[in-house]
């Protein structure tokens, strides 16, 4: 189990005493259970014990999350608020009730769920939050339910008047299950189980021993069950990319249909889509591990990492007294590291905030170098990487440097159908021609942001006066299952959604195998990509991206096939 510094986490919480006390109680209980489970698991790698350790670990994780949450104000972006509104509408109509949030660590994916629940409670609604932190050992069936056979056998021995031979045999099977020698669907065990059932059914305690009393619902099972009772539930499936593919495909049906059967009792549980919201988070680096069948069934939202201006706001919300020059210094250092691809682990928002907290306490002027680097950078190798803080703005690396694949390119290389949108849609002078398209989206019930513009005065030399100009504030963006926004006007669009979009698409990415094209001349070369002019099918293409495997990517004019 990971090292978990509970006490310091809780002590630094600055919320009301009552919350702190509650957390302390939980903390003591967790510690106590941990110390009791440890000797049990050492003696015997018992299946039942491992399950309990896993559950305890999940609870611990939730407590950390809460104490983190209590340490600083939570900031939610208008963007996420909009996603939530769309999800609510789709869930009400029964169309879709899950959303995948993708983003770097520290973009607030997890905290979003907590914050949503908070707002609903404030409105007087009865809601709950079930938080699953995905691990690679998890099986889809664990998420639904498990049967505590050991407890049932013990109860049968203690409560029922069992014939001696059955009592002894119960002991035998109990040990087998505890030792992990057999699974509870073992054929021979099942025969014994039926025999014992037959005996106990005749006795007074038969009812107590019914399987339904020994069902432990897993997080997904619990969420579906609660939704069936009319209770509103948020299920947060955190860092799903850590799970194996079987886990994801294994729970696909249950997530979509909110229905499962407990085999042992024949009980069928059918949830209510309107009451359940499923929030799935994934880190950007590993998001391609999520099967596309999974993505198709969910809303999808990519949270961009906060730009410098936004980050300055976030820092100010946390440290209202911070001086402007220290803030600028801290952001210079932070982004120099954050944008450096050589790092093994880039710092993210929590590290930045922790570092600033220390700076405020220890530094009374702007430092020359980077003190307390270890807070920002977890690896020794990373700490040895020098950053140049004093380059002029004009010399800074552009936001999207050429040695990195764009998100759209990355997805296209992985075989996703990536399309480019007509950029006129974000042009204030052209946007009017898309009105029919917006109406069509509206009629089909597809949610989107309309592009938003603001007006400003610009000096016009020819006229010798100020004229009104328009500037783009919010880009057009679709929020819908089956359409995944990649930023910069690119989308992954599933085939069934192509028809609606065809009038606004202008290009599609095409992957060209090494043997099918020739390089005419190389423009630039970096660690991961080469930019070159190439010849493919007798046509000349300029400035084409080629990856390390020698595969080229063309952005071709879109034609409906």
């Amino acid at each position, binding site marked *: 189990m990971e090292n978990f510094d509970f006490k310091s986490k809780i002590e630094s919480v600055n919320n009301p005493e009552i919350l702190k006390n509650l957390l302390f109680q939980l903390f003591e*209980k967790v510690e106590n259970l941990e110390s009791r489970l440890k000797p049990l698991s050492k003696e015997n790698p018992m299946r039942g014990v491992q399950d309990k350790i896993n559950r305890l670990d999940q*609870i611990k994780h939730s407590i950390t999350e809460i104490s983190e949450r209590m340490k600083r104000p939570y900031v939610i972006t208008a963007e996420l608020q909009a996603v939530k509104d769309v999800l609510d509408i789709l869930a009400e109509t029964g169309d879709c009730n899950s959303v995948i949030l993708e983003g770097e660590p520290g973009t607030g994916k997890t905290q979003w769920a907590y914050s949503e629940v908070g707002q609903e409670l404030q409105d007087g609604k009865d809601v709950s939050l079930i938080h699953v932190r995905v691990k690679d050992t998890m099986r889809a069936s664990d998420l639904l339910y498990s049967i505590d056979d050991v407890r049932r056998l013990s109860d049968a021995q203690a409560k029922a008047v069992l014939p001696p031979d059955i009592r002894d045999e119960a002991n035998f099977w109990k040990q087998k299950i505890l030792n992990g020698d057999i699974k509870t669907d073992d054929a021979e065990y099942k025969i014994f189980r039926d025999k014992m059932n037959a005996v106990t059914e005749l006795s007074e305690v038969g009812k107590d021993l019914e399987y339904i009393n020994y069902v432990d619902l897993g997080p997904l099972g619990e969420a579906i069950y609660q939704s069936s009772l009319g209770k509103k539930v948020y299920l947060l499936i955190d860092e799903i990319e850590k799970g194996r593919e079987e886990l994801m495909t294994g729970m696909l049906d249950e997530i979509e249909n909110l229905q499962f059967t407990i085999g042992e009792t024949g009980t069928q549980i059918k949830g209510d889509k309107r009451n359940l919201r499923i929030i799935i988070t994934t880190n950007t680096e590993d998001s391609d591990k999520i099967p596309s069948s999974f993505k198709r069934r969910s809303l999808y939202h990519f949270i961009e990492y906060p730009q410098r201006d936004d980050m300055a706001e976030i820092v100010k919300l946390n440290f209202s007294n911070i001086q402007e020059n220290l803030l600028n210094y801290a952001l210079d250092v932070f982004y120099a590291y954050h944008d450096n691809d050589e790092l093994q682990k880039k710092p993210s928002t929590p590290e930045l905030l922790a570092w600033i907290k220390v700076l405020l306490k220890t530094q009374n002027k702007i430092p020359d170098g980077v003190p307390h680097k270890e807070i920002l950078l977890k690896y020794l190798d990373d700490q040895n990487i020098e950053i140049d803080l004093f380059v002029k703005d004009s010399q800074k690396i552009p936001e999207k440097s050429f040695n990195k694949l764009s998100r759209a390119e990355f997805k296209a290389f992985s075989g996703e159908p990536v399309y480019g949108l007509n950029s006129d849609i974000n042009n204030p002078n052209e946007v009017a021609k898309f009105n029919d398209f917006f109406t069509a989206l509206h009629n089909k019930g597809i949610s989107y942001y309309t592009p938003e513009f603001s007006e400003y005065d610009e000096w016009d030399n020819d006229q010798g006066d100020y004229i009104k100009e328009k500037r783009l504030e919010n880009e057009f963006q679709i929020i819908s299952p089956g359409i995944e926004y990649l930023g910069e006007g690119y989308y992954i669009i599933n085939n069934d959604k192509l028809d609606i979009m065809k009038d606004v698409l202008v290009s599609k990415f095409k992957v060209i195998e090494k043997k099918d094209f020739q390089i005419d001349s190389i423009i630039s070369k970096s660690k991961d990509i080469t930019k070159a002019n190439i010849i493919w099918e007798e046509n000349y293409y300029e400035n084409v991206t080629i990856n390390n495997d020698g595969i080229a990517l063309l952005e071709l004019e879109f034609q409906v096939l």
Partner: protein
Amino acid sequence: MRKTKILKVDEKKITPKLITIINDLKKKLDQLESEVVSLEQNKNN
């Protein structure tokens, strides 16, 4: 580029939900404890 608007969530709105979440966790821990008790009994038998 889209400009992200930042909204600060009201702490007062968060506190009651945290209490509920903490209470839920407490219930889960209680359940876990009763299961641990039965495991310990099993071990002793």
